């Protein structure tokens, strides 16, 4: 599936490296990685276990500081040998949406509140946040489960609620960690269709780590990582 590349890349990494430990115990998790993800693109990140996929996602999500390199997110240079912004949580709140393998919904909030919590963190009042949350749940075709708690949602429903939460603050960048790993092929297809819809309609860049072969054909580009290095791209 090809989406025409247009506009400035929302994610731009140059020679990003990340190592853990020093000396004999040093492990190079990422070595000179450079990628670009444009608005509207759904990009896959593939590689065997320990190849550095999750580390790369953590770096792009501003969760882990790279050891070296340069990184730009949505037009802002955020890393150039050091973090250039002190409020990384705020940056994540405003610019990045996260989708997890096991949805990670807060078990004590219902579907609406799980989405609304991201909006209240951004400063919306509770009533407005809930109203917007319901809109998002309807958009992701899970509005009928708005009052259900995560424990009673099916895997597919929970993942759609999680996507709604990731989209709540209209982020331009969405990072997904194995978003379909816990779903059967039918539900995995629905989730990928939703991500595609979000990427297209909201001009967002989606970077997804996956092992799930059944969704390989849903990506515009796929980066292969091996031992922390970009092997090739397809």
């Amino acid at each position, binding site marked *: 599936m090809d989406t025409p590349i247009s506009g400035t890349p929302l994610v731009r990494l140059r020679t990003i490296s990340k190592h853990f430990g020093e000396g004999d115990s040093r492990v190079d998790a990422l070595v000179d990685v450079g990628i670009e993800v444009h608005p509207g693109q759904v990009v896959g990140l593939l590689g065997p276990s320990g190849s550095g996929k*999750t580390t790369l996602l953590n770096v792009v*999500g501003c969760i882990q500081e790279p050891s070296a390199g340069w990184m730009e997110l949505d037009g802002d240079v955020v890393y150039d040998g050091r973090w250039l912004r002190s409020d990384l*949580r705020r940056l994540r709140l405003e610019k990045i949406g996260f989708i997890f*393998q096991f949805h990670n919904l*807060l078990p*004590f909030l219902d579907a609406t509140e799980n989405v609304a*919590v*991201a909006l209240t963190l951004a400063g919306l009042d509770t009533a407005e*946040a809930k109203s917007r949350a319901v809109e998002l749940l309807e958009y992701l075709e899970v509005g009928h489960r708005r009052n259900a*708690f995560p424990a009673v949602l099916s895997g597919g429903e929970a993942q759609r609620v999680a996507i709604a939460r990731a989209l709540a603050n209209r982020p331009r960048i969405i990072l997904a960690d194995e978003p379909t790993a816990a779903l059967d092929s039918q539900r995995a297809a629905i989730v990928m269709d939703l991500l595609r819809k979000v990427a297209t309609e909201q001009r967002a860049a989606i970077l997804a780590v996956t092992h799930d072969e059944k969704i390989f054909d849903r990506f515009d580009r796929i980066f292969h990582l091996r031992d922390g290095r970009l092997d090739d791209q397809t």
Partner: protein
Amino acid sequence: MNLALRDIRHKLGRFLLTCLGLSLLLGTALSMIGIYHGLVEDALTLVRAPGADVWVVESGTRGPFAESSRIPGDTREAIARLQGVTEAGSVTYQSIETEQRGVKLRFYVVGYEPGRPGGPDRLAAGRPSGRSHYEAIADVRSGLALDERVTLGRRAFTVVGLTDGQVSSGGDPVVYLTLLDSQELQFEQAPPAARRELARGAAPAGTDTVNAVLARVAPGVAADSVAESARRWKHLSAMTQAGQEEILTESVVERARKQIGLFTAILLVVSTVVISLILYTMTMDKIREIATLKLIGAPDRTIIGLILQQALAMGIAGFAFGAGLILAVKDYFPRRVVLHPEDGLMLGAAVIVVCVLASGLGVRLALKVEPAKALGG
């Protein structure tokens, strides 16, 4: 949106059970404070009941509660004649055990002269003693009823009146007898002992001995000066009402007070440790949720608020349950439990401080949680 309340609502059963456990701990701490106040109040009730201004006891003693005191029965006339004294009365105090309806009972017997200082200040039921022998006025805590007969020593007494809340510093309910009866009870020898004394040529032992003489002074007369006058008799010692109360609170119940105070402090420390562990465990259970919140951009104050609010909710609910529980059952305690509103406020404030301190461990753990923990399987 209050995350702490949502989490509590989600695990309400577990939260309530935790609060119940905590409430028992805090209720025990509160009851300790109440028992201490009860101890002091019990001790003072007996001292305050006669409404005396001066206590005259045996020289060199701080009797009759702190130490044994015996003075001649005619001391009362001498004290009554002191300048400034309006009335005086002889009293005896002794602990006694008896069996009633097959149950062992322990009383604190006060002997007094009806119409003179030393008797009960007011009756809850019945009438004052109208005869000089074999009538008793018992406290309701003794379990005795009006017109019930009770055997004390070798004689039976009829309960003609009831007092309410008169117990000794040891918690034994008070039974008032006339002075003559109480002197016989305390000082009369058993017949075999008396026969033995007579056989060896000793004079018959008298019973006209009392433990103390209580005096009331005229308005405007300083009790100190009367006590000073009484002390001129070398065989007597005297103290004011305030002095007697001080002896009781600072001497007789001091050790119990320290013991209870220490125990209360230990309970508060235990409560702090328990709350800390509960909060730590609750936080451990929420590591993934906390990591997710951090990942989606929640500031530290949201995370701290979540833990601190739950700590306070748990502490306040636990304290409220505990206080309610103790208020409901305090009258069933064998010793009097006296709770003052300020005790509740003080313990409540201590609980809030404890909760804030205890939440530190959970907060520390939560702040160390890496947002990356939310990613991965």
